């Protein structure tokens, strides 16, 4: 590795109007290394990647490939330079098939006047198979968000590149898929391909990467070899302070006998899942785990009336709940945070303040049905502060926020109301370590005030660290329940995948 | 000056106002309006809106009015909406005469037009006679446009009254669209193989209708009102049976005269109570400017461009 770095960034700056997203940052990527890029939400990671990928143009500074300065004017140029970018935000053509999406760059470059669908399917199949068995002839619109994320990755894998940029690829993935991705990345590395890997999950970074670069507030902080640093050290560099306690204290075991807040009986939707029973006590944080496509989101959405149930019943606070639409659920005090931030979580074109207040406008409505804009602004400002949203102001459209900050806005929206039960689907997807701690503490505070909380998460440490109890869903049915004392990664994975538990675990699992 | 009272004061201006101002029907009207104006030493102007929109026409009328002209010769797209603007014009001393369409409840001085009923009636007679008083016919319509509706109604009424063996087999709305007219005539011809004639009250539809008739073997006689170069060519070629064309030029010339007199009532002193009562002595409620029957023989005289060339003027652009 004596030759010039494959990719080098020198003194690069970028501003969006008054917002300085990056000032004078640098980065060096060696041949065949996996280089982690860390930083809080809004630190400028994606912005930098977008400039390398030709989506944005830098205001100042240089990008060098193999020692040669280049200007990356468009994504097409980036591809020619051998740069492949998996965007943080899913950008797929919803009306086209998985295969066409995966092979889109090839189709674009194709000289022959007519399509060769056979070839497209075969190639897509090959790329997809490495990651997950998603049928390549389905329309992307019919896939869940996590499957779309996999398609997005597969798309980059078909490119013949020397630099692969992965911007939070695992944010929506479960352990299984993530592991598969890691083995692919290690493969690429062996073949001399360099990878920039962005993630907020320290464990991944430390198991996968060679070096790590940290950004803070749009500035370069440091680059370290993984071998010579520690997660705590990286977090300290990122946040600028020590984070002592990653997860809040759990529910004291004597309080666990609180009244049942939400009880779901024999719920089925007629297609994705069947016969789901579930109880949630006041003050409890219940986790739901499972593999991609297990049907967790569908169960949660059906409970809330966002999907049609075919049979079964839901009772809230002892009273049977008749929900015709989600609005009824909100009225009754049952709210749901979507896993699809862009599709159904936020209003990209509207201001942060308007986003935060969307769930309960009644609270902000004064006389004559008019909106109290001062109250709206105050509410947004205080929640944004609490969650550490990095923004130009609460009037800025959500589209100008970084991915993690958009997620914080979506969460702020849920927290702005005072529900009895909150169901959160992948709540901390894309959120940095510091903010995650804050969100977890908020959730625990709410639970302590008697709110029931359900957290669906693909991140096992989160399930284990945050939840009092975890249900594992497999193929549309609840495969088992793990109590506070039984929570560990292996147990969850085994229930989720259906692999027979080893005798050592047998005693810990209560089959439902 | 006293020698010739028929002279305008400097700055005395007469305006013509129409809707869909870009179409050629109005041009011969203005041509004679302008000529009369020049002979009187007056300024004239052609105004209106290119759109088929009464609201916009009223706006252009109001704007013309804001310049305080001596008189306006107006074709009110709809009659009643013009009552208020016309009355306002009269109040401010601008004379108003309507042409080709009227606003009878307004205080306009006169109305000059060809007789739509007579046009329809004549067209019916001509068609029926040529078919020996026996056969099937259809009409294309433009429902809602008053003068067109009158022509069609008169055509049908005449057939029923005078030609009992002429059978009306279909009515379709072509709304002045040649493609719609084309489709309508093709469909009518399918449903009624013996269809012998089709009448429409305007020229746009006729282009499509004539083409359809031609494709149908040329046994359908196309009769219409109004003309344009294409229609005239087809008449000459025998592809269109004939047309009744209002005498537009006379609408313009007489329209001007009526306006001028309304503005200068002091020139006349008819035997009535106007002088004593102090009302406008110029009152001719209705003038019929007549119409022409355009056939192979006289079609050449109706080409607008030839007419312009013969006269050596620039049409509406002066």
């Amino acid at each position, binding site marked *: 590795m004596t030759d010039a770095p494959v990719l080098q960034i020198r003194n690069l700056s970028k501003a969006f*109007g008054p917002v300085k997203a990056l000032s004078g940052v640098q980065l060096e990527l060696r041949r065949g290394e996996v280089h982690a890029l860390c930083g809080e939400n809004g630190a400028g990671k994606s912005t930098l990647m977008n400039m390398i990928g030709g989506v944005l143009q830098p205001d100042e500074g240089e990008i060098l490939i193999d020692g040669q300065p280049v200007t990356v004017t468009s994504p097409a140029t980036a591809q020619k330079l051998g740069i492949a970018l998996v965007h943080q935000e899913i950008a797929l053509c919803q009306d086209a098939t998985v295969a066409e999406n995966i092979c889109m760059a090839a189709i674009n470059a194709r000289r022959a006047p007519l399509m060769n669908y056979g070839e497209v399917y075969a190639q897509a199949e090959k790329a997809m198979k490495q990651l997950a068995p998603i049928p390549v002839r389905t329309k992307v619109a019919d896939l869940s968000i996590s499957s779309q994320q996999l398609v997005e990755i597969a798309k980059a894998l078909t490119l013949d590149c020397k630099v692969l940029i992965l911007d939070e690829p695992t944010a929506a993935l479960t352990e299984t898929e993530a592991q598969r991705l890691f083995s692919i990345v290690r493969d690429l590395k062996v073949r001399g391909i360099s990878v920039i890997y962005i993630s907020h999950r320290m464990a991944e970074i430390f198991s996968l990467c060679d070096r790590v670069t940290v950004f803070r507030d749009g500035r370069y902080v440091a680059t370290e070899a993984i071998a010579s640093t520690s997660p705590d050290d990286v977090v300290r560099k990122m946040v600028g302070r020590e984070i002592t306690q990653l997860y809040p204290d759990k529910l004291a075991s004597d309080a666990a006998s609180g009244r049942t807040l939400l009880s779901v009986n024999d719920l089925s939707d007629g297609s994705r899942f069947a016969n789901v029973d579930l109880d949630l006590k006041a003050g409890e944080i219940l986790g739901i785990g499972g593999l991609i496509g297990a049907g967790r989101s569908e169960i949660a959405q059906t409970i809330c009336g*966002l999907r049609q149930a075919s049979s079964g019943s839901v009772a809230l606070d002892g009273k049977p709940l008749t929900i015709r*639409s*989600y*609005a009824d*659920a*909100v*009225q009754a005090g049952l709210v749901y945070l*979507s896993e699809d931030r862009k*599709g*159904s*979580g*936020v*209003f*990209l*074109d*509207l*201001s942060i*303040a*308007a986003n935060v207040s*969307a*769930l309960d406008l*009644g609270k*902000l409505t004064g006389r004559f*049905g*008019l*909106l109290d*804009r001062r109250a709206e602004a105050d509410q947004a400002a205080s929640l944004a502060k609490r969650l550490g949203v990095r923004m130009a102001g*609460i*009037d800025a*459209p959500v589209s100008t926020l970084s991915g993690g900050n958009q997620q914080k806005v979506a969460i702020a929206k849920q927290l702005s109301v005072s529900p009895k039960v909150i169901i959160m689907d992948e709540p901390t997807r894309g959120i940095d370590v510091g903010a995650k701690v804050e969100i977890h503490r908020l959730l625990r505070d709410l639970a302590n005030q008697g709110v029931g909380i359900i957290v669906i998460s693909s991140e096992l440490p989160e399930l284990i660290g945050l939840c009092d109890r975890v249900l594992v869903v497999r193929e549309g049915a609840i495969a088992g329940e793990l109590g506070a004392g039984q929570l560990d990664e292996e147990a969850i994975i085994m229930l989720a995948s259906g692999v027979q538990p080893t005798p050592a675990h047998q005693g810990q699992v209560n089959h439902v | 000056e006293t020698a010739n009272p028929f002279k305008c004061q400097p700055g005395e201006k007469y305006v013509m106002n129409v809707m869909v*101002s*870009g179409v050629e029907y109005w041009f011969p009207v203005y041509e004679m309006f302008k000529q009369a104006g020049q002979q009187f030493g007056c300024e004239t*102007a*052609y*105004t209106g*809106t*290119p*759109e088929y929109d*009464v*609201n*916009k026409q*009223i*706006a252009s009328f*109001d*704007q013309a*009015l*804001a310049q305080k002209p001596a008189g306006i010769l107006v074709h009110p797209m*709809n*009659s*009643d*909406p013009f009552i*208020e603007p016309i009355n306002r014009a009269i109040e401010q001393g601008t004379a108003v005469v309507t042409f080709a369409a009227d606003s009878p*409840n307004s205080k306009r001085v006169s109305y000059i037009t060809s007789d739509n009923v007579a046009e329809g009636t004549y067209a019916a007679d001509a068609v029926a006679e040529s078919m020996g008083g026996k056969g099937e016919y259809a009409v294309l319509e433009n*429902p*809602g446009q*008053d003068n067109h*509706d009158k022509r069609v109604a008169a055509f049908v009424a005449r057939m029923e009254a005078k030609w009992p063996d002429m059978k009306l087999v279909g009515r379709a709305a072509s709304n002045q669209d040649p493609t719609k007219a084309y489709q309508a005539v093709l469909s009518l011809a399918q449903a009624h193989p013996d269809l012998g004639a089709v009448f429409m009250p305007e020229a746009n539809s006729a282009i499509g209708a004539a083409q359809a008739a031609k494709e149908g073997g040329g046994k359908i006689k196309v009769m219409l009102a109004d003309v344009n170069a294409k229609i005239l060519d087809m008449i000459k070629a025998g592809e269109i049976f004939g047309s009744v064309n209002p005498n537009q030029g006379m609408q313009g010339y007489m329209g001007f005269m009526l306006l001028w007199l309304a503005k200068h009532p002091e020139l006349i002193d008819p035997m009535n109570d106007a002088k004593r009562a102090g009302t406008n002595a110029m009152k001719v409620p209705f003038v019929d400017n007549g119409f022409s029957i355009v056939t192979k023989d006289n079609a050449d005289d109706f080409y607008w461009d030839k007419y312009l060339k013969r006269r050596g003027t620039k049409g*509406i*652009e002066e």
Partner: protein
Amino acid sequence: MHADIKATGPSRSSFARLASMREAGLIVIILALCIAMSFASPHFLTWGNFRAMLMSFSIEGIVVVGMTILLIVGGIDLSVGSVVCFSMVVSGALFLMGLDPWTASLIGIAVSALIGAVMGFFVTVVGLNHFITSLAAMVIVRGLCLVITKGTPLSLFTLPPEFKAIGQGSFQGIPYVIIIFVVVVAIFDFLLRRATAFRKVFYTGSNEKAAQFSGIKTNQVKFWVTVLCATLSGVAGVIYMARFGAATPTFGAGMELNIIAAAVIGGASLKGGSGTIFGAILGIALLSVVTSSLILLDISVYWQDMIKGCILLAAVSADHFLHAKKS
């Protein structure tokens, strides 16, 4: 960025606020046109001319209000011209049958609302899109006008003067029509920016799914906005009737394009989620000033359309640049 949803801190001066508005560019362009015109024609800067221009778009302006709100929710209504006409025709026919004109007008507005409700039903319950639903409604309602009038204009010469005054009278020299227009615009502009109910219109239009996931009954929102647009068309129809003293079955044909264009010039998007009433009104004012100017300048009719289109394109491009500069 939407001025309407954006909270403006008390610290900013009202001038800065004005300059930062989405509409600032349009205002500048209209003013520039007016100044140029006042040099070109001595008749331009007269109350008579302004009155004519204002009168020519103020009733349409009421329809523009409804259309803008509908565009914000992500819908569109091609039937507005037909509904305006229908309201005229129904009220007129009822009046001729002996009803007093006020009751007749209320019924006219009510049936317009009903048409909106039927369209809303097809959009929200059946699941058709606004474009095709309102296209069918446009044809059907126009047909109803023809059926009711038998194709001939209803002459409402006998309307009592106090009713006609709505369309023809004036208060202290200012026509009632203009007063009504200003009031309607002011109310809806205010409501759209401030009322909770209208905020939901923005949510629904911006991201329908996210709105549903925020507990908003988006179908209800779309339904009522569709009804509102048709109702305002009905109101416009009644005012037109009072102004013209007639009900013509072909009235308002082709009006929809002009109205949608006004809203789009004013910043509304066909994709939903954005638009302001004030902007849309500036849009229709721009169209009207351009038309009037050409007439006033005595431009040859052959050239009017062409010049009008070019000015429109130039104005929209200029607005686009002025707007892009800021953000």
